[in-house]
C-alpha cells in the first residue's frame, strides 16, 4: 500500500511538471499583465509589459499584447502634440483589444484607412463610463492636445455608477499568493477552461449548507418590483457629464443603437451629443462580426468599426 501511494505521489509530481511544460510549450494559458492605480487615480496596466492573451480551450484565440509607457495596450506611445491630428479611443475590453494582436487593433486599422492621424487607445477591461470620463479629466493636459475623442459606451453595462471611485477589487487580486499562482500556467489554463469549477461548486455548496440561510417567501419575491434601470442609468450619465464636463465639439459616443434605449438616444440627440452608431454597419455585414468563443469583435468587426470611426470624425 505504501509503495502504491509513494508511486502515485511521485508520478503525480512528475506528471504536473510535464503538463506545466506542455502548457507553456503550446502557450495554452494566458499571460496576465500587472495592474496598478496611478497618481491620478486611474487604474491601468503597469507600463512596458508584453505577453500573449489566450481565450478558449486549446488556444482558440490568442493575441499578442504590448503595454506601452502610458499603461495601455498599443503599438505606439501616446505623445499628443499640436502638430499632428490625434484621436483618442476610450473604452473597455473592446477597445483594449486583448483578443487581437496589438499591431492589428482598431486604432491601427483607423490609421491604415485615414491619412495623417495618430490613434491613442485608452482601453482597459472593465472600464465603465465613470472610469472613462474620469480618465479624460485626469489626463486633461494630454486630452486638451488631442483633436478627437471617441468613447465606446454600452448603455446596459457602463452606466451603473453616477460617481467615480477607484475600484480596488481588481488590483487587490494581485496578492503575492495570486501572483505566484498565476505563474503556474497549468493552473491558469485549467482554471480558464472551467476544470476547477466543479470542486469550487462542491466547496460552495458545503459552505452554503453549513450556513443558516434566511428563506425568502415566494410571496416576497413576487411583490418585488421590476426596476427599470433606464432612468437610473440616464441620471448617472447626466451626473457624470455635469461633474466632469464633456467637450461636445470634439467627442463622439460610439454605440450600438439596437441595444440602447430610444429615450437615451433621443436625449443624446436633443442635447447635441455626437454619436457613431455601428448598428447598421454590423447588420449589413456579410460575415460574422464577433468571435464565437470570446464575444468581442473579430477582425472583420473591428475593420467595420475602424471604417465607421474614420468616416465619422472631422479630419
Amino acid at each position: 500500500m505504501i509503495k502504491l501511494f509513494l508511486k502515485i505521489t511521485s508520478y503525480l509530481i512528475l506528471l504536473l511538471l510535464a503538463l506545466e511544460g506542455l502548457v507553456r510549450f503550446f502557450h495554452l494559458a494566458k499571460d496576465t499583465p500587472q495592474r496598478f492605480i496611478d497618481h491620478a487615480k486611474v487604474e491601468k496596466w503597469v507600463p512596458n509589459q508584453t505577453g500573449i492573451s489566450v481565450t478558449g480551450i486549446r488556444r482558440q484565440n490568442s493575441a499578442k499584447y504590448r503595454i506601452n509607457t502610458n499603461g495601455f495596450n498599443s503599438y505606439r506611445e501616446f505623445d499628443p502634440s499640436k502638430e499632428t491630428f490625434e484621436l483618442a479611443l476610450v473604452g473597455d475590453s473592446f477597445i483594449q483589444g486583448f483578443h487581437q494582436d496589438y499591431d492589428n487593433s482598431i486604432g491601427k486599422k483607423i490609421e491604415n484607412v485615414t491619412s495623417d492621424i495618430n490613434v491613442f487607445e485608452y482601453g482597459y477591461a472593465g472600464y465603465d463610463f465613470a472610469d472613462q470620463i474620469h480618465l479624460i479629466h485626469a489626463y486633461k493636459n494630454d486630452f486638451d492636445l488631442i483633436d478627437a475623442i471617441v468613447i465606446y459606451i454600452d448603455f446596459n453595462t457602463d452606466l451603473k455608477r453616477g460617481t467615480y471611485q477607484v475600484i480596488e477589487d481588481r488590483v487587490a487580486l494581485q496578492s503575492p499568493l495570486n501572483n505566484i499562482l498565476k505563474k503556474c500556467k497549468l493552473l491558469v489554463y485549467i482554471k480558464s477552461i472551467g476544470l476547477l469549477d466543479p470542486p469550487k461548486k462542491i466547496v460552495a455548496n458545503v459552505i452554503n449548507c453549513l450556513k443558516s440561510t434566511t428563506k425568502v417567501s415566494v410571496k416576497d419575491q413576487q411583490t418585488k418590483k421590476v426596476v427599470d434601470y433606464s432612468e437610473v442609468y440616464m441620471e448617472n450619465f447626466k451626473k457624470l457629464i455635469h461633474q466632469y464636463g464633456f467637450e461636445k465639439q470634439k467627442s463622439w459616443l460610439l454605440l450600438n443603437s439596437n441595444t440602447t434605449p430610444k429615450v437615451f438616444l433621443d436625449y443624446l440627440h436633443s442635447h447635441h451629443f455626437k454619436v457613431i452608431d455601428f448598428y447598421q454597419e454590423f447588420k449589413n455585414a456579410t460575415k460574422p462580426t464577433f468571435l464565437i468563443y470570446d464575444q468581442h469583435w473579430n477582425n472583420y468587426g473591428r475593420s467595420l468599426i475602424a471604417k465607421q470611426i474614420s468616416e465619422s470624425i472631422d479630419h
Partner: protein
Amino acid sequence: MPVLWLRVLLHNKFTRPALKESEKNYFGQVLFLTIGILFFFKYYNFFIDSWINLFQFAGYGLKKSWTLNVILPVGISFYTFQTLSYSLDVYYKKIAPTDNFVTFATYVAFFPQLVAGPIEKASNLLPQIANIRNFDYTKCTEGLKLILWGMFKKVAIADAIAPIVDDIFLHYATYPATTLLLGAVFFSFQIYGDFSGYSDIAIGTAKLFGIELVSNFKFPYLSRNISEFWQRWHISLSNWFKEYLYIPLGGSKKRTFISARNISIVFLVSGLWHGANWTFITWGAIHTLLYFPVFFAKKNRKYSKSVVAETSKLPSASDLIKIITTFFLVTLSWIFFRAPSITIALDYFRRMTTYFNYETYQHPNGYRMIDYYILILLFMGYEFYIRKNERQPFNFKSPIIRFLVYTLIVFFLILFYDDQVDRSFIYFQF
C-alpha cells in the same frame, strides 16, 4: 433504489439453500415479477402508445389515458439481467445458491457496474465477493490504468465530439451528405468512447477492490465482419443473450431456418432491451440482416479467436477493407440508434445518400474541427496498437515511454475537456 432492493429481496428468497421442492414454482413467480417490473417501467407506455398509433392508423381514435407518467429507474435493464442470470443459474443448478444476504445484495448492487454493466454472471462475481480479498499492488495499478484509459475515452473522445453529433443530428435537414456522414461516424466514436469508457472505469474500480469483472469491449471497430463485431461489442450482454436466450431456443444446432429465427429473436430482443422505441428494434433488425450473410456463409466464427494483424505490425489490405466495410455498416445502423424516431432516421439516411454537396463543417462552438479529426485518428491508431490486450492499455516495458503516454493522455484530457458539456453516460438511460 426501491426497485433495486425489491429485486434483491425477491431473488434472495428464491435462492435460499434449503429450497423445498414445493417452492420451485416460486422460480416462475420470480421470473414473472422480475420481467414484469422491467416491462412496467420500460415498455408499458411504449406498447400502449404503439397500440394507440396502430388503431389510429386503422382509423380508430383512442385516448391516451392509458399511458402512465413513470420515471425509468437508472440502469434497470442491467441489474434486471444480472439478477435474472443468478436465478437462472441457480434454477439450472449451474451454481449453488448463496445463504449470505450481504454477499448477494453486494452482487446485485455492486456500485462500479450497477448502472451500465458489464452484466456479471453470478458464477464470476459472487465467489469473488464472498472470498476474503487482500490488497494487491498489481491489481490496483492495473485498475488505476484502466480508470485513466476509461476517463480518456469518456472525456476526450465521447464528450468532446458530443456537441458535434448533437448539432448534426438536430439540424440534419440543413446539412449535406458529407456532414451527415461525419455525424454518423462521430456518433460511432461517441457511443464507443462513452460506453467502453464507462466499462473500463467500472472494471478498473472493481480491480481496486480486488474484483475482476468481465471485459465488455475488445476493440469492436477493428472487427472484420459483423459477427466479430458482436464478439467485441458489449460482450457481457451478447454472452447473456447467448446463454439465456439463444442456446435455450436451440442455438445453431438445429436446422438453418431455426438458427436464423433464433438469431433474429436475439437481435430484436437486444434492440428492445436498449430502449422502448421502434428505432432500437429497427437497429436490431438491421444487425440481423447484416449478420445473416456471415452466418449463412458459415463465417460467424472465423475471427472468434483472433485479432486483426495477429502476427504482423499492420493489417493486410484485405483485412483493412473488411474493417472499413464493417465499421461503415455498423455506423449506418447507429443512425437508427441515435435518431429520435424512425421517420427522422430514414430522412437522415435519405439525405445522406442523395444530398451530395460538400460543405466544410463548422463546430457549433467555433472550435477547430481539425483537432477532432486528429484526435480520432490518433485514438484509432492507439487502439490498433494495443489491440491484443484490452485490459492493459499502457503495456509498455520502458517506464519512460509509459510515463510519456500517461502525460499525453492527461494532456489530451485537459485539452478536450469542455465545461459547457455536462453529460451522464449514454447507457445510463438503458
